[in-house]
């Protein structure tokens, strides 16, 4: 098995849910692409070489998505894939109909839904259970005869909570609606080739590929209007000369991911690292996990009573440990996470929440070092604020 490129040696990187280091197969694929300067749409040899590489990459990404090559639309990232799924679907239906989504979606979905609402689409947003999961019965109750699309994420980017997307898809299909699954957080971690959804979005940089490239899996029966008009690339669904280096990198990362997706040892290792992390952190007391099971093992959302998460993240950063407060997209914002808020987490707890998300290169020694540094930092910050926490050992 190819070993992915590690983070710089002086860093312990536990922010894979924000972005993952570029894996070695992706690097190799991009390096190969440096010589493929032709335009894939050109008739000459240079263009055909690029065209062939693009076709090969499309097949590799299709394998990850579990579809035919023709059903893959390359995009400029996960957010564009999501916007193409939502905006494109309703644009093709004259902005008519009903969208059902959830309050814990990524802002790419929620902001896109808000834009649809401004265009006249009726939007229903379903809240999660306190565990961070969406109850399929609540989705079913929201479905209407004019529901066109249901959009639900596969795993939440902040809590890691895995959503019952296939059950939701079955309910939607029974009601005559289509489904979009935002699989940005699960691509490369869990198999997504069997997802029953009509539309599936992924982003390369979350699973070891480069930034600025993603893909939408689009079933043959689904019609949508493009967001970008032009030269008819991507079968007219996304114009613009293809980002060949990015696509090659994504394909390299997809092929690497496929080597370990179904590997029980890899999955067991992720579960062991999660257990080690959670148990290690619990010694400091006043610790709350923000998602119930099922959950992606690699993503741990945890709150520490009596501290502010941004301060804890800064203290850890100064020791070369990279963690996130909530999601990276919300870092720097003063408002608490919309995900935790929707789950009913109090503001104080939300602001005391850090997300630790590990990946293939993470070792047990890394986890132990993060636990030791975090326990020390939390203890110190509580001393500074004068907070007494029961249950610490």
């Amino acid at each position, binding site marked *: 098995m190819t070993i992915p490129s590690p983070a710089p040696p002086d860093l312990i990187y536990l922010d894979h849910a924000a972005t993952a280091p570029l894996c070695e197969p992706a690097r190799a694929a991009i390096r190969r692409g440096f010589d493929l300067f032709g335009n894939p749409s050109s008739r000459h040899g240079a263009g055909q070489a690029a065209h062939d590489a693009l076709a090969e990459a499309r097949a590799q990404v299709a394998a990850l998505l579990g579809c035919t090559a023709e059903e893959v639309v390359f995009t400029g990232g996960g957010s564009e894939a999501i916007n193409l799924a939502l905006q494109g679907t309703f644009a093709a239906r004259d902005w008519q109909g009903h969208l059902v989504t959830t309050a814990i979606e990524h802002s790419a979905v929620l902001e896109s839904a808000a834009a649809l609402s401004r265009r006249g689409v009726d939007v229903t947003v379903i809240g999660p259970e306190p565990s961070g999961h969406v109850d399929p019965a609540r989705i079913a109750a929201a479905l209407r005869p004019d529901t066109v699309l249901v959009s639900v994420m596969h795993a939440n980017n902040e809590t890691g909570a895995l959503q019952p997307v296939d059950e939701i898809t079955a309910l939607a299909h029974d009601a005559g609606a289509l489904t979009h699954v935002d699989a940005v957080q699960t691509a490369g971690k869990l198999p997504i080739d069997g997802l029953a959804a009509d539309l599936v979005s992924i982003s390369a940089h979350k699973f070891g590929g480069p930034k600025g490239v993603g893909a939408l899996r689009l079933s043959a029966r689904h019609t949508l209007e493009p967001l970008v008009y032009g030269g008819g690339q991507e079968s007219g669904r996304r114009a613009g000369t293809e980002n060949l280096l990015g696509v090659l990198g994504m394909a390299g990362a997809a092929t690497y991911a496929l080597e370990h997706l179904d590997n029980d040892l890899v999955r067991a290792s992720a579960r062991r690292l999660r257990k080690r992390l959670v148990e290690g952190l619990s010694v400091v007391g*006043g610790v709350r996990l923000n998602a119930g099971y099922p959950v992606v093992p690699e993503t741990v959302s945890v709150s520490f*009573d*009596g*501290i*502010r998460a*941004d*301060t804890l993240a*800064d*203290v850890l950063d*100064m020791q070369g440990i990279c963690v996130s407060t909530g999601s990276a997209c919300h870092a720097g914002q003063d408002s608490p996470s919309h995900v935790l808020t929707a789950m009913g987490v109090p*503001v*104080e707890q939300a*602001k005391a929440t850090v997300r630790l998300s590990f990946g293939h290169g993470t070792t047990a020694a890394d986890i132990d070092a993060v636990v030791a540094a975090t326990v020390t930092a939390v203890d*110190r*910050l*509580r*001393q*500074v*604020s*004068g*907070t*007494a*926490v029961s249950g610490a050992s």
Partner: protein
Amino acid sequence: MPRFSPTVVDHFTNPRNIGQLAGANVRAFVGNPVCGDQILLTAHVRDGVVADLRFQAFGCSASLAVASLLTTVLKGEPINLAGDLDADRIEELTGGLAPDQRHVAALAADVAHRLADNFRSGVSDDDPITCAS
């Protein structure tokens, strides 16, 4: 460019004079009670000099750093110095603050002024740090 000056990093990773001073004869608190940055100073002022002081703080890294820094600046100095410190001087002592951190210099100046005023008036603030649990 680093987000924090070396002095700020030093103080929030290794804060000095943490806690509440037993036998303090003046206490000063400033802060946003809705989970914003909060600083509590407790001091023993003898013969007009800050003989000892401690701080507690809840807030961002820079606010913890300036609170810690403030204790090192005031300790052993006349209490009047606390009344004379302003935000510009505190920012200078930190080695520089990013634009989104500059509010903490004002916060530190406010609590220093309040310490001096409280001492002069013979009053003390209660222990109001909230949102920490």
